[in-house]
């Protein structure tokens, strides 16, 4: 079934207005890492956060009063994408629109706060206000409420590649004639416990920057934010193919799985690969597949500039690919060996988005804009 990207929106550590952030990426800017910590240990963790002034203004909806950052990020990106698509979700459009929200870590800020209170003060002191916001589908519920959508609303969980599975779900939903639009949003919020976990897992480094394709890999820096796309059936930017990929058992198997995704998608000439290289084991696995299947294509990863925002990071890759097709420009690949960078091409028609998560999932898609 034909699927087109009608609108894009993102909330990133470099801002939230698509063209402004794109200009900053084109100029080679990187987000500035700040440190977060917990009183539970003496650690400090570098993280790329969304500046408070970067969040787009949100409607004064009662649902947004006490919500966690992830819900605000998701709403900001989704509303921006709808604006970009020139879609007004009114009483006619709402019943013909579905929402799919995807995340890896969900409302982790409230989850840790809630559980901390349980441990420190006992179950009797646990806050009934916090608990509902810990549920994975809280952001999609808020978004549906803001937009007045009363039909299909789904939340998917997974790792960095969950956005690809969400797009596949959107493709399946759009088979139904009753839908005209599907809003797909991925969002994450940063938290010290995630940084601690990724560090113990030897995936997060202790200080910026993210350096790509180093051997051995030096690790990523966690980030936060959201990415959103509005999907419809007709449009200039087309989703030509989605490879829902699969799951690898060990990090050493990642390259085989990424290779399968490239085999699935790389038929025909690819002008650009937007990968998920982030300073971890993913880099070598992706490099191998890129060299084998699309060596002539330019390679770009937004992660040195924006950080590793897990599910949202996967969508930032997709949005980067769309922006590259729209603007016919690609930002410089930062913090990578010179051998990985090449002269920018002048015409981009087909972009392969290859997404590999840190927790076993891979997937990808082919985005095209015929001249």
């Amino acid at each position: 079934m034909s699927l087109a990207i009608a609108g894009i929106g993102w909330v990133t550590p470099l801002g939230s207005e698509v063209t402004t952030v794109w200009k900053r990426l084109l100029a080679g800017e990187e987000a500035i890492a700040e440190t977060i910590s917990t009183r539970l240990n003496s650690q400090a963790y570098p993280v790329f956060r969304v500046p408070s002034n970067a969040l787009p203004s949100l409607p004064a909806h009662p649902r947004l009063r006490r919500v966690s950052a992830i819900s605000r990020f998701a709403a900001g990106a989704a509303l921006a994408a709808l604006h970009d698509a020139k879609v007004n979700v009114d009483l006619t459009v709402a019943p013909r629109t579905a929402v799919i929200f995807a995340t890896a870590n969900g409302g982790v800020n409230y989850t840790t706060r809630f559980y901390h209170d349980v441990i420190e003060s006992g179950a009797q002191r646990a806050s009934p206000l916090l608990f509902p916001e810990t549920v994975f589908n809280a952001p999609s519920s808020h978004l549906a409420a803001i937009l007045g959508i009363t039909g299909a609303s789904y939340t998917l969980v997974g790792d960095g590649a969950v956005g690809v599975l969400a797009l596949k779900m959107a493709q399946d939903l759009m088979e139904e004639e009753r839908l005209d639009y599907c809003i797909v949003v991925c969002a994450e919020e940063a938290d010290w416990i995630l940084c601690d976990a990724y560090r113990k897992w030897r995936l997060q480094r202790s200080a910026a920057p993210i350096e790509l394709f180093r051997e051995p890999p030096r690790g990523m820096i966690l980030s936060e934010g959201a990415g959103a796309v509005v999907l419809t059936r007709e449009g200039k930017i087309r989703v030509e193919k989605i490879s829902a990929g699969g799951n690898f058992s060990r990090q050493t198997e990642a390259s085989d799985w990424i290779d399968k995704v490239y085999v699935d998608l790389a038929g025909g000439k690819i002008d650009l690969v937007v990968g998920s290289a982030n300073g971890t084991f993913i880099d070598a696995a992706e490099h191998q597949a890129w060299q084998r299947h699309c060596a002539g294509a330019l390679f770009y990863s937004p992660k040195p500039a924006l950080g590793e925002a897990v599910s949202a990071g996967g969508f930032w890759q997709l949005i980067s690919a769309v922006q590259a097709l729209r603007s016919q420009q690609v930002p410089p690949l930062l913090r990578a060996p010179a051998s990985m960078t090449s002269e920018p091409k002048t015409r981009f028609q087909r972009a392969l988005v290859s997404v590999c998560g840190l927790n076993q999932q891979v997937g990808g898609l082919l985005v095209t804009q015929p001249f």
Partner: protein
Amino acid sequence: MTKKSAKNGRPKPARVAVVAAGVVSPLGFGLGETERALRESRDCISPVNQFSVEQCRCKTAGQVSDERLVKIAGRAQRPGRLHRSAWMIMSALEQALAHEPDFRPELAVIGTTSGGMTFGEQYYRAVHSGRGVSSTPRLIANYPPQKPMVDALEAFGISIPCQIIANACASGTNAIGHAFQCIRSGRHERVLTGGYDALSELVFVGFDSLQAATPEKCRPFDRERTGMVLGEGAAMLLLENLDLAQKRGALILAEIVGYGISTDNHHLTQPNPSGSGPRQAMQGALEDAQLSPDAIDYINAHGTATPFNDAAEGKAIAELFDGVAVSSTKGMMGHSLGAAGAIEAVFTMLALQHQFLPANINFRNPDPNLDLNIVANDARPAKVQSALSNSFGFGGTNASLILQRAA
């Protein structure tokens, strides 16, 4: 595989069969044990033994026997690293695949709410206590919600894309519904679907803090209902294009004929008292199945026994149907959240297969505000041709599924 409709040139929707299923719940392991427990209307709620509930109002839950789970865990490499919910999935999957050993799904669509949450709890407690934990990497790598399913698939050598739906308590029904749509549209021929969730302290305390959990018996639709008890479990269903299944001579357990989904924007944790959300989901499923309400012989209700949920669902059922038999099976095994929809779809399938109505236990007094035909306390034989299963969750997610007896 799909035939073109003469009307609009679009493929004729494929019919969808359940060709095998497996279930693990407080009621038992497997379809046989589960059917017996349902027929006996067994109360399988017991005092919580997995964590301290000293400070909670509610102190009971429906729990799955660890002794039996451990036996299946040996199937995986390094089973000790797996989460309990992965063991439950493995057991349910093993049962299903025992009936269909050559079933090769192209996609998995599975529901959960909290996945490996207890590993996250252990990890947080380790950090909080300031002590080092040698198993920390295992906890970190295996706590994400999708991980138990990915591990279970790996144990069976199945490597397929895996969509994990986390639509709160409607997750399991949403998963089956979406899997059904994937086959019906012709995009897939075989899909593995279901749901899983294991008890966790965080979730238990969460429902307790909301006073949604009861210190008493769980009495769905009763006038004196005071709330839910939690449960746990997993159910896996193998769905296949019915024509293909029939062609290869597969045993058809049931046919899925309709699915409805709605989002109630009234409140994050409370349904619109009008019952509009459940009503929209049930109506959607009926339209999808091209059935009128009087074609439904039995409704397996969401029926959590919270005052608001049962009032909204009961109102919607009473308005839409005329005296249909209704029961909530949560009084027997508790509310297993993301697994509930899948487990209850299996219960509904068993009701269709074996022609009986599962009971709504602990029922004493009808709610005068709800005009419902409750299957009170005892299961009973009945002619059941079409049945509807409801699941509703936080965030206003509502899902309804219609199953029919295999021809």
